[in-house]
């Protein structure tokens, strides 16, 4: 419990609480002689309590005005989901539709637009996942670190509306995605969700580095391959064994060779892509431990509530006050008022 005040100087006025001990709002009625009246402990107690209540109300109002709050807290939670880094291809070809045609930046059927919509849906459906995002084309762009803030993730996905440029250069993207898990405690499944419509050659040295990192960080890989009609399926061995013509096949081979949980999905049309995303959703529902940040909470409301209840008590007492001699001497009982 970390308590703090936003305007502590307001508490300088706290001596005002003593007012309730000095103020005499109840008019003193003339009596003949108090010395013969018996001392009444209950009255003394009651009026002391009322004064304390008054002082308490003033103090509570001052505390409320000074803005008390609970500091930001982090809480360990256990949820279902994974840490998912979305590695989104932003190369020029993503602007085309599945038939391989370009219809302009605002086209609804472009691969990137469909991927964007489906990823948006996917993120909305997932509850406890962490999402990070990287868009890559020739070079990767660090868009957003791993976070549970869905609004931010959706905004990051939405920010891919600008037209994609460049070629699909996959190795630096993967490296950066793996980098996201560096120095993070292993609290659940880690997934890289690679969404691309093509691949590029990765040299051997880089391949071994990547493989090592995949193992070190225990990351799973899902590759959503947005295959248009001109490309070949991942499994079909190219007739010409040259990486330049079908890098996807070789990349697929490389991923399979790493020895990490790897799954490739070929999405040839929007429906297939939808299925792919559903399947990932089903797969990655393992327990995940994460720390949640709870924003600072204002406690002023509780102070006001307490103060109001105190004021109500005082008002109630005020109703019973006898304020004039006429009331004191002409009423035999309170109900005659």
């Amino acid at each position, binding site marked *: 419990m970390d308590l703090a005040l936003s305007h502590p100087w307001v508490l300088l006025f706290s001596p005002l609480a003593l007012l309730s001990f000095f103020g*005499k709002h*109840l*008019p*003193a*009625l*003339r*009596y*003949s*002689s*108090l*010395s*013969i*009246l*018996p001392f*009444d402990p*209950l*009255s*003394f107690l*009651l*009026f002391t309590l009322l004064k304390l209540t008054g002082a308490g109300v003033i103090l509570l109002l001052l505390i409320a005005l000074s803005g008390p709050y609970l500091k930001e807290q982090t809480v360990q939670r256990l949820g279902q989901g994974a840490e998912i880094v979305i590695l989104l291809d932003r190369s020029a070809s993503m602007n085309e539709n599945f038939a391989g045609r370009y219809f302009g930046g605002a086209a609804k059927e472009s691969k990137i637009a469909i991927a964007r919509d489906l990823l948006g849906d996917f993120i909305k459906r997932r509850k406890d996942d962490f999402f990070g995002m990287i868009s890559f084309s020739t070079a990767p762009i660090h868009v957003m670190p791993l976070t549970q803030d869905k609004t931010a993730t959706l905004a990051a996905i939405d920010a891919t509306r600008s037209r994609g440029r460049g070629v699909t250069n996959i190795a630096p993207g993967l490296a950066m995605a793996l980098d996201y898990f560096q120095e993070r405690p292993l609290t659940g499944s880690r997934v890289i969700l690679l969404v691309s419509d093509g691949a590029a050659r990765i040299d051997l040295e880089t391949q071994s580095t990547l493989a090592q990192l995949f193992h070190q960080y225990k990351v799973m890989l899902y590759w959503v391959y947005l295959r248009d009609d001109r490309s070949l399926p991942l499994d079909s061995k190219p007739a010409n064994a040259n990486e330049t013509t079908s890098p996807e096949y070789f990349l697929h081979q490389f991923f399979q060779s790493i020895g990490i949980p790897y799954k490739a999905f070929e999405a040839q049309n929007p429906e297939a892509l939808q299925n792919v995303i559903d399947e990932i959703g089903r797969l990655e529902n393992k327990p995940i431990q994460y720390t949640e940040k709870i924003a600072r909470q204002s406690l002023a409301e509780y102070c006001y509530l307490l103060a109001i209840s105190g004021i109500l008590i005082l008002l109630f*007492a005020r109703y*019973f*006050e*006898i304020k004039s*001699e006429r*009331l*004191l*001497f002409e*009423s*035999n*009982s*309170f*109900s005659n008022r």
Partner: protein
Amino acid sequence: MLEEFHYQLPWRTASAHPGRHAGKHSGGEHEFHGHAPLIARPEAHNIDIHASLLDPFGQFMVRTFRQRGLISVNIIADLSASMSFHGKMKTLARFTELTAYSAYRSGDHFGFFGCGQDLLPDFHLPPRWYKGGAAELVDRLGQFDPDDSHCRSLLSIAEHCPRHRSLIFLVSDFHFPLHETAEIFDSLLKHDVIPVVLWYPQEYRNLPEWGLVRLADPETGKDRQLLMRPTLKRKIIATFEDRQERLKHLFTRYGRQAFFLDDTFQADQLTHYFYEQ
């Protein structure tokens, strides 16, 4: 028409002034006292033939009488701040008016001593014969708002009182300590002092059953907050009744019962009071 009450006293006045009360001095021809030889009392018109014949020495006997004299009726009023409660001064004014008028009607002297911290000159009437009562004093009394913190001059009032035994109404709420009450009565032993206890039912019986109230003591200036409730009210009534018993007990030691005065008082009650003694 003003009410009046009649007072008769179980003692003889030493006053030489003629009046309607039994006196100590011989003289007059109303109250038979005894017989005396003519030689001792050369009053031939009072020769009692029957007594002379019966006298073994054959002397002429004369009847002797005692003269009737007047007394002085005094009110010693406690004018400390506690008497400012509610309408106590009004009741005191009315009581004074009745007493002054009754004294006037009986041909007696009336005196008034208002005692605050000191004897208050504005409320001091030396014992004289005031024709028609003391209307002016009564008016001032009714409007007076006493604020003296103590009625200390009561303790030394004896020096201002008449030399001869007189009738004194000591009007007070007797809210001061009992030993002071006893001291005052000790100093006034020579006189016939009737304690008049001026209590209002509002002080205890008519207090409200419920409520929060702040009561101020006009003498000390202190105040106390009370949660009025039936238990506390019963406690206060019991306190007052207990005090009443103690006062009665004390007054009996000095020979007179207390007369309890409140705002409903009638002159006839006083007449009855004197008959009952």
